[in-house]
């Protein structure tokens, strides 16, 4: 039997917006009963329309927000986020946020960001901590001179890589990545995806990978879930989902992929000239 690292049963999340003098309080169900299972060392990719509840699901899995209903089970243990989560479990489950800027402390240098988890969780000497942080910086395609810089001094894609590096420094068992490579050009994207694949091979890391980029999903995923308005409308092995999509939205999604062939470009330019 393979180990199940992550399981959810009918996870639900409601958001209630505060009512005002003239407005009634309103409840929106952002996630409508998601059940999933991820085995150790595997990658589940989640795709879906913007606003369909992917980040909300990610925040429940990583115990940042408690679910409105349903069960979250990590390593066979039922977790009750609302009642408090042990530091050990917190370390085990990490998230790379969709908005890396918002998750970095503006007053903390990048080197310190990366070394901090080692201070809290291990008794490594300072020189070793520094060495490991430097190594990680290089692995995500940044350079030693970036060590002493603050978050605002980086480009969008560089910040995204810092967020990935920080999550990896904690040696998580389960890593949830919310659009982690959306701002990276292909050269860096390949480097980061290869790094994630290597770490998975070496340490059996388990990933939940949220992405809009279908070619990336196709490359990285073992299983794929397609979400639509808070529900899982498709869930299966990568090959099944890609070769035989069942739901209308999935079909639309695959059909909307941009066309890069010369004929399509020519046709578009002709339309533009005609309209001008």
């Amino acid at each position, binding site marked *: 039997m393979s180990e199940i690292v992550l399981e959810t049963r009918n996870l639900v999340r409601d958001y209630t917006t505060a009512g005002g003098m003239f407005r009634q309080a*309103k409840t929106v169900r952002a996630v409508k009963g998601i059940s999933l299972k991820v085995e150790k060392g595997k990658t589940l990719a989640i795709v879906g329309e913007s606003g369909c509840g992917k980040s909300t699901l990610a925040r429940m899995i990583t115990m940042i927000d408690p679910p409105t209903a349903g069960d979250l089970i990590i390593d066979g243990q039922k977790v009750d986020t609302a009642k408090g989560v042990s530091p050990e479990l917190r370390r085990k489950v990490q998230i790379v946020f969709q908005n890396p800027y918002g998750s970095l402390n503006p007053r903390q240098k990048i080197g310190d960001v990366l070394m901090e988890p080692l201070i809290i969780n291990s008794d490594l000497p300072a020189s070793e901590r520094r060495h490991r942080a430097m190594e990680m910086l290089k692995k995500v395609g940044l350079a030693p001179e970036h060590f002493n810089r603050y978050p605002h001094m980086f480009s969008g*894609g560089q910040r995204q890589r810092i967020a990935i590096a920080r999550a990896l420094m904690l040696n998580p068992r389960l890593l949830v990545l919310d659009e982690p490579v959306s701002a990276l050009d*292909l050269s860096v994207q390949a480097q980061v995806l290869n790094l994630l694949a290597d770490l998975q091979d070496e340490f059996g890391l388990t990933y939940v990978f949220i992405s809009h980029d279908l*070619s990336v999903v196709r*490359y990285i995923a073992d299983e794929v879930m397609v979400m639509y308005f808070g529900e899982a409308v498709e869930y299966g092995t990568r090959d099944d989902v890609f070769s035989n999509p069942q739901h209308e939205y999935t079909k639309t999604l695959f059909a*909307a992929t941009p066309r890069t062939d*010369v004929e399509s470009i020519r046709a578009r330019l002709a339309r*533009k000239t005609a309209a001008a």
Partner: protein
Amino acid sequence: MALLEIKNLCLTFDTVGGKLKAVDGISLHVDRGEVLAIVGESGSGKSVSMLAVMGLLPWTATITADYIRFDGKDILNLSPSDRRKIIGKDIGMIFQEPMASLNPCFTVGFQIEETLRQHTDLDRAARRRRAVELFRMVGIPNTEDRLSSYPHQMSGGQCQRVMIAMALACNPKLLIADEPTTALDVTIQKQILELLVNLQIETGMAMILITHDMGVVAETADRVAVQYKGRRVEESDVLSLFESPKHPYTRALLSALPENATGDRLPSVSDYFLEEEAVTGGAA
């Protein structure tokens, strides 16, 4: 005459570790009704050069250029108040990190209406109508409700569409779009790109589009500039670029797509350089 013309832009940041050169002599121009796409590596200075045009860099930045001209006016030496009249009205910008670029303390509706208040003569009711119209254009459902949401109550892609709506609010002559669809799934990306292209044809709006997604380039651009290692390595019309890319980095961008992965490793750009060097004997 070009709508925006930049000649020899250089940009340095003062940091505790000394001076840091972020942009080293970039020139570009874009005409009315034209879409210029800029593609290039992460960290190659794409965003900061556009922020320089907008006058939005921190004080640690030193900007020099032979000139930055917009609509015939030199905006490099414009007084801050004259510049504010152009920025946000004649030039709109979609920022790269939408969730970090919206003000967390105000509702998104207030932020759009505030932009309209500063730059147009619309009265309160007309501003509200325009805000509703903009939200519909970018495909945000339940428009009336959504206008009273705060940024943290919206998803990443919803925030990105709010940014797009704000940038378009005053019918800009030039739209600078910095990775405008990174948080959108391909179905909504398609709607947004169509919206931008149509506006562009209808109003003659010029657009500078920064992206790393060659699919987005193929579906929108007229002309493409490719930056690599801080330099401009290639510039051509979009058809020629896809038909016969010249620089190895461009060729790599076009072929290093994950769908071309062989085995379980992704080809990286340097793999392509090595391959090309093997073929050309290092002449690339």
